[in-house]
């Protein structure tokens, strides 16, 4: 039900003198502002915010919202992003005042429930990864990568080998965040080739592996959805050179309870709870990027972590760390506190404790599923992906072969060669049929890549409908496809113009 009047920009809708908010009268004796603040610090006027009424704000944003596709409303097979169902019960939990209204500097005794969740979350993530030490702090997957690389740097520094271990190996099929994180952490990036299945090209690996390797950042299952066949070999060889293995855990949805990073040789991994554990993606974020590492690397984790004290035990040094009351009063019962960790800790990677709201949703998700349920998640994610692959391969080649884990990458290259139809054309045309597009042009190793991740929270009916539409689309006239989408309010924004002379805010 279109309404284009109320989706004019806020600034066009604004009218001088309109107000949606009424503040209470000041209940303390008011002093002249100029007596309280130096005039030189004062603005002449408040910022030019739009002036609106409350109904106007509601209509504006509600109408905007319906211009989005979303997991709540549409199939959204965006590869590598695990766009699974976002349970409403988790939203309800996160909205409880006992979580939503907690200040990060509350006394620990007033936070025991929160700290319990976080402590248990550390334990759960360690169990799922097989890596015993956990930091919940990183704010997203990329931030987790960066934090883990800082852990590695701290470790090598501590070992005195930081000047030798300068390189980070990154497969060419890896997500862009991997090389970007490596550079931010001060390492040199060395790209390793992968084969058509996305597997590490072992010849190239051997060619690149040397004593300077600090970390091999591997995505497993990799970005084409294949479990790395040489995983063990790679891990052993990197370890033999004194290097570490980092697992990009974005694809954990394929292997929950099936195999664990720690068991296949990784020393560190991050999670994307906003993918694997159903945190909603928020139109871009928030995410979280907790990491797990080996016992050996534990001392280098960022501070603080949550520690548990069994009944009758005193916390060492808690009052130095701002913990209130823990060292006073009667002997405590079992309780939780923030542990600011070792001298070796790499320090802080952000303010406060972490993206707790996302972690809490993930906690609810893990408790909803339990051990069997989590494994079933992976089983059905893999089943759905293979089923869709078995249907798609008949009309779009899937270079990796007949099998995948949680996602697969088809290629539109032959269609492009034959009819000039690109992956982008197909993606845009799918929108007309009420499907969000898969990820396109990633990984870079597959030409005209068309990366499909259905997730376990979709039905066979939806997968069938998607496969049928996709097939129909590949048969359509190229012109129809080049001009797609046809049914949306706008079609193919001119990105070149946008970048050439960028208009990044409303002027006037």
């Amino acid at each position: 039900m279109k309404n284009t009047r109320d989706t004019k920009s806020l600034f066009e809708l604004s009218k001088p003198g309109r107000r949606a908010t009424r503040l209470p009268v000041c209940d303390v004796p008011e002093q002249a502002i100029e007596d309280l603040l130096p005039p030189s610090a004062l603005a002449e006027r408040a910022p030019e915010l739009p002036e609106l009424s409350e109904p106007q704000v509601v209509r504006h944003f509600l109408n905007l919202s319906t211009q989005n596709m979303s997991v709540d409303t549409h199939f959204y097979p965006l590869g590598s992003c695990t766009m699974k169902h976002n349970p409403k019960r988790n939203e309800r939990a996160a909205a409880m005042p006992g979580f939503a209204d907690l200040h990060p500097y509350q006394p620990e005794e007033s936070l025991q429930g929160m700290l319990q969740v976080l402590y248990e979350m550390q334990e759960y993530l360690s169990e799922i990864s097989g890596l015993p030490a956990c930091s919940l702090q990183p704010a997203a997957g990329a931030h987790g990568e960066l934090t883990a690389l800082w852990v590695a740097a701290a470790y090598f520094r501590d070992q005195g080998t930081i000047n030798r271990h300068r390189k980070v190996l990154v497969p060419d099929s890896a997500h862009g965040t991997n090389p970007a994180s490596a550079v931010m952490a001060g390492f040199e990036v060395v790209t390793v080739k992968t084969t058509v299945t996305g597997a590490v090209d072992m010849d190239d690996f051997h060619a690149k592996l040397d004593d300077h390797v600090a970390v091999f950042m591997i995505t497993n299952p990799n970005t084409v959805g294949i479990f790395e066949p040489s995983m063990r070999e790679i891990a052993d060889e990197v370890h033999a050179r004194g290097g570490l293995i980092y697992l990009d855990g974005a694809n954990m949805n394929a292997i929950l309870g099936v195999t664990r990073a720690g068991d296949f040789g990784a020393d560190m991994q991050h999670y994307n709870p906003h993918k694997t554990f159903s945190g909603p993606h928020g139109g871009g974020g928030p995410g979280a990027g907790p990491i797990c590492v080996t016992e050996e690397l534990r001392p280098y984790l960022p501070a603080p972590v949550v520690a548990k004290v069994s009944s009758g035990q005193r916390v060492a040094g808690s009052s130095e760390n701002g913990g209130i009351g823990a060292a006073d009063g009667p002997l405590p019962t079992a309780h939780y506190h923030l542990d600011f960790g070792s001298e070796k800790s790499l320090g802080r990677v952000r303010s406060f404790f972490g993206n707790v709201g996302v972690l809490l949703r993930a906690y609810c998700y893990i408790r909803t599923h339990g051990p069997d349920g989590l494994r079933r998640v992976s089983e059905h994610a893999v089943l759905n992906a293979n089923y869709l692959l078995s249907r798609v391969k008949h009309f779009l080649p899937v270079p990796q072969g007949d099998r995948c884990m949680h996602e697969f990458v088809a290629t539109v290259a032959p269609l492009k060669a034959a009819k000039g139809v690109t992956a982008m054309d197909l993606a845009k045309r799918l929108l007309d049929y009420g499907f969000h597009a898969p990820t396109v042009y990633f990984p870079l190793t597959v030409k005209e890549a068309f990366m499909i991740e259905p997730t376990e929270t979709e039905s066979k009916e939806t997968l069938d409908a998607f496969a049928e539409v996709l097939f129909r689309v590949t048969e359509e006239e190229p012109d129809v496809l080049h001009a797609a989408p046809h049914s949306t309010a706008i079609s193919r924004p001119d990105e070149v113009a946008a970048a050439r002379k960028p208009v990044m805010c409303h002027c006037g």
Partner: protein
Amino acid sequence: MPYIYNTTQDVQDMLAAIGVESIEELLDMVPEDLRLGRPLDLPAAQGEMELEQTIRTIAGKNRHAGDTVSFLGGGSYDHFIPAVVDAVGSRGEFYTSYTPYQAEVAQGNLQAMFEYQTLITRMTGLEVSNSSLYDGATSAAEGVLMAIAATRRKGRVVVPASLHPEYRQTIETYVQCLGVEVVTIPAPAGVVDADELRTALDDQTACVVLQHPNFFGALEDTDSITRVTHDAGALLVGVFDPISLGLLKRPGDWNDGDGADIAVAEGQCLGSPMAYGGPYLGIMACREKLVRRMPGRIVGQTVDRRGTPCYTLTLQTREQHIRREKATSNVCSNQGLFALRATVYLSLLGPEGLKETATLCLQKSRYLADRLSESDRFELAFAPPTFKEFVFRDREGKVDTLVKQSLDAGFFAGVPLGQFYPDLDDCLLVCVTEKRTRAEMDAFVEVLEGTAKDAKDAKLVAAE
């Protein structure tokens, strides 16, 4: 399985179509010897009703700003959140979508982000805003990295001690591996001295990071510091409190418009819950000339193939998914939902609402500061004017006891500063937002003074 559709029949049909016998066969790709041969050691599954009971019980072990009167600040604030913000933020089409890669089916998100960027430029007085970073601290660190790249100065970064200590620590983490030094300038009077700052700046100083109002709630001498910083050829990264802009000059306007080159902020105060510290909203704006070094997504306005005005992600060549190791930053997922909330919040407040909110914070915090100063036991730690936070000293040095007894009486007393500044271990950082009432403040003062009367008992408790 509440979220899985596949029935037993579906599974059979799908396996048959794939041509395998069982799901296990599909998992064969994982080598046998790498398999976990046992169930994960996790608590058993819970249905929704049980889960809710579990979670509610756990939540019940916390006290929170809804049942305890909070005077906590220090970067996370108990400002009022209008119901419309929640109503918009809980629209599935907003919060269950992702980065707007397909602009045609993401105009809602794109326009909201464009509006957010516009609001941030108007708030900061700078030309460009991105569409969010993780939080205030990482935004400050990213701002420092931008400054290092833009100035090509890799020597040092200068921060006053009055910068939020967690921001300083985060910056240290970010620059340490790059070999850049973080030099901290003391702020014994609660603000940094511009002349002292000048002595720390050399020709390899990339930037100064100035928080205003600073961590102690105090107003810095923004004009002088801007001048000193720019005189040294360094950039100024300004850290601001968005609510303060209802009264204070915008970072871009400091020193007569000379101003901050990069402005960053924690945006939680703009309509997001405190949620024990995250997820929050990293705000970042900068001068036009720095835009190609800016991290994070940026939305631009353009036209579509039919000439219809519309929005799309732009300047993506800065980003990791295009540039990989040459990207300006590794940021991928950002804090879009909280940028949306901030947009709704600011739309509801408007210029007058922001100004009134800021004024209430100022007046009320001053009221509490005045009340505390009247006491024999307490004094304000610093002289410079403050906005919504201030530091007070307990002459008896019993900060832990004050906090404990306040908690028992139903108050979060403030942030004990000893954890960050050993020489301020007799000090509390106190914050008063527009939500606090005079009655609450009067009661709080009574509790603190009651504590004073019971100092002997309190001492006994502490000694136990």
